[in-house]
Every structure is written in structure tokens, then in C-alpha cells.
């Protein structure tokens, strides 16, 4: 039985901000400051803590945040669990490939590397901005600039694909018109 609960993005913003702030203020997710929720930092703490504890030969002890010393941080796993429950309840769970797989792999590696340098994901950049970190606010501006250029790239890719599809269709159906398009 599918059960669809409608939640607006505005509600998500308020609830997740409350979770992030409460984590720090009431449940001592600090230091570091503004650490209530972060997909990059908490993922780093999870991986480093696990590998530090298991201690394979090829792994040198990695540094973790002060919060991770108190226990295993499983925020990212919790996000996946909550999303899985929501998807199953609403009947939206479906295994499928959506994006180009090599592109997803490269983007995943680059995003985590850049995120580890700044020790934050977009969510934590916003949380740090709310905390009063002007460096984070400046980083949010450049983040938006990056999104803008990424959007231009997506538009260019879509136009290129549309031109190629049109060219292919024209060549199949209208040879004379296809020659004209090819000449252009």
C-alpha cells in the first residue's frame, strides 16, 4: 500500500536546521563548531573511525573530529535509511540507472576531495554561514557561481544532443534537407 506524505522544501529547511542546531546545542556535537550535520565531514569521521578501529595494515591512523572520538557518527547512514523508508512507503523505490556511470564516479570523487579540503558540504557551508563564518558565506557565493557554470554546461550538453538527434533524424527521413543541415 502506497502512502504519500507531502512535505515542502521549506518545511525540510526548517526541520533540518532544527536537527543541526539541536545536535550541537543539546547533544554536544561540538567542537568543531557548526557540526550538527554535514555529509562530507560525518562521512569522513565514519570512514576514518571504522578504519582506525579495524586498523588494516595499509591504513595509517587518520585524524577525526572531537565529536567522533565520543562515538561512531552515522548521520549519512541515517539519511539513507530515512530516505529508503520514505521511498518504500510512498512506492517510489525503483532500481534504475539515471546518469552516465563514469560521470557519476568522477563527480563523486571530485566532490568528496574538494569537500574534504574545505571540511564541509553545501549543507555545512550554510550552517557555518548561519553560525557567523564570513569565509563560509564567501564560499557559498562561489558555490552558487559553480552551480551557474554547471547549469550552462548542462544546457550546452542538451543543445548538442538535440542538434545531433535532429541531424540523425533528418539524415534518415529527408536526404536533401539533411545535406543542407550538414552543410551548415
Amino acid at each position: 500500500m502506497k502512502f504519500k506524505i507531502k512535505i515542502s522544501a521549506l518545511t525540510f529547511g526548517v526541520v533540518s536546521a532544527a536537527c543541526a542546531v539541536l545536535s550541537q546545542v543539546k547533544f554536544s556535537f561540538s567542537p568543531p563548531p557548526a557540526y550538527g550535520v554535514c555529509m562530507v565531514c560525518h562521512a569522513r569521521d565514519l570512514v576514518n573511525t571504522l578504519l582506525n578501529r579495524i586498523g588494516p595494515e595499509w591504513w595509517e591512523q587518520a585524524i577525526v573530529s572531537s565529536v567522533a572520538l565520543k562515538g561512531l557518527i552515522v548521520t549519512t547512514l541515517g539519511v539513507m535509511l530515512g530516505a529508503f523508508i520514505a521511498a518504500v512507503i510512498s512506492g517510489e523505490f525503483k532500481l534504475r540507472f539515471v546518469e552516465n556511470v563514469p560521470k557519476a564516479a568522477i563527480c563523486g570523487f571530485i566532490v568528496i576531495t574538494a569537500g574534504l579540503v574545505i571540511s564541509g558540504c553545501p549543507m555545512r557551508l550554510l550552517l557555518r554561514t548561519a553560525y557567523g563564518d564570513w569565509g563560509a558565506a564567501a564560499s557559498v557565493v562561489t558555490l552558487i557561481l559553480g552551480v551557474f557554470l554547471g547549469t550552462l554546461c548542462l544546457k550546452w550538453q542538451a543543445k548538442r544532443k538535440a542538434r545531433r538527434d535532429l541531424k540523425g533524424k533528418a539524415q534518415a527521413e529527408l536526404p536533401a534537407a539533411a545535406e543542407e543541415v550538414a552543410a551548415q
Partner: protein
Amino acid sequence: MSKVTIVSLVMGVIIGFFAQRSRMCFIGGWRDFFLIKDTYLLKGFFSFVIAAAIFFYAFDLTGAYIKDYPWFDRPPAEYTNVYDAVFYQAEYAVYRDLGYCDLTFNPLITNLEIPIPSVHIGGFAIPYETLLFMGCAFVIGFFSTLANGCPVRQHVMAASGNLSSIVFLLFFYGGIIIYEKYLVNIVNDLINF
């Protein structure tokens, strides 16, 4: 199971549930706005930062202990083992302190008073670190857009069965191992300049 584990799991489940039902994405908000002038996800973006600012301020007014809040007005730290990237007035003495990330392995207590290398613009000195962080934020914005979502959205999509997002996350978590093993020293040298 420690308190930190339980709290992080509960908060994660709440955020994941709400993110899946709302289709929320911090990168997608701006992408949709630039493409089709749709502001649905942008409302989530702004509501998050405004609500967080209000909640922090409200808790501060009630007297709750919030370390170094607000960040721009925190007392100078003389002996912490933290490093940070901030804008600062060029004529003030600067020192290095680990701020927002506070990574720790062996506790290092340092008492550094070293001017941070920076670019001087209009009376302000912008540290090279800040420029590096702004550059990395740009990279995150660009490549997250190409990947069709921010890290939160990728986790949500992976949990909803999107196999491309699962590949993203495999290289996301694998990238942590590669970074910690091979890249962390290079980056630390870059940040320390």
C-alpha cells in the same frame, strides 16, 4: 551504542525522510532557478540558513553554551590547535587556529602567532586559505550540478534505488580513503603554505 551514534542516526533518519519527500537539493535549487526560474527548492535553501541562524541566536539568548558563537565575534584564541580561514583587517596580528574543523588525533597544543599569507584588497587581507576554500566550493558547486545533486540528494537518490547515485557514493566514500592515504599531506602543505 553511544549517545553520539544514536543522536546522529535519529537526526539522519529525520533529515533523510524529509529530504526524500520534499525532493530537496541545495544544488538543485539554484540549478532549477537558473534553468527554468523555479524557486521551490530555493525556498528550502534559504529557509535552512535563515532557520539555523534564528535557532542559534535563540539558543544563545537563552544562555545555552554555544562555543565561539557568533564566529566572527569569537574571542582570540592563543593556544588552540585549530586553523581557520577568515577575513581579517590587514593591520591586526593574525595567528593560526584550527576553527571550523577541529580535527584531532594526538592533541596538539600550539601557540603560534604567524601572519597568514594573504592577498591585500582594500584594507582587508584575504588569506590564501580562504581563496582555496572558495575555489573548492566552486568545484563542489560545478561537479555536483553535473552529478545531478548535492551530497544530501545523492544519498537520498541512492536510497531510492538510483544506481548512478550508488556509483557516486562508492567513489565518494572511496575518495575519503584515497584522500586520507595520499592527498591529505599535500593539502595540508597547501593550506599551511
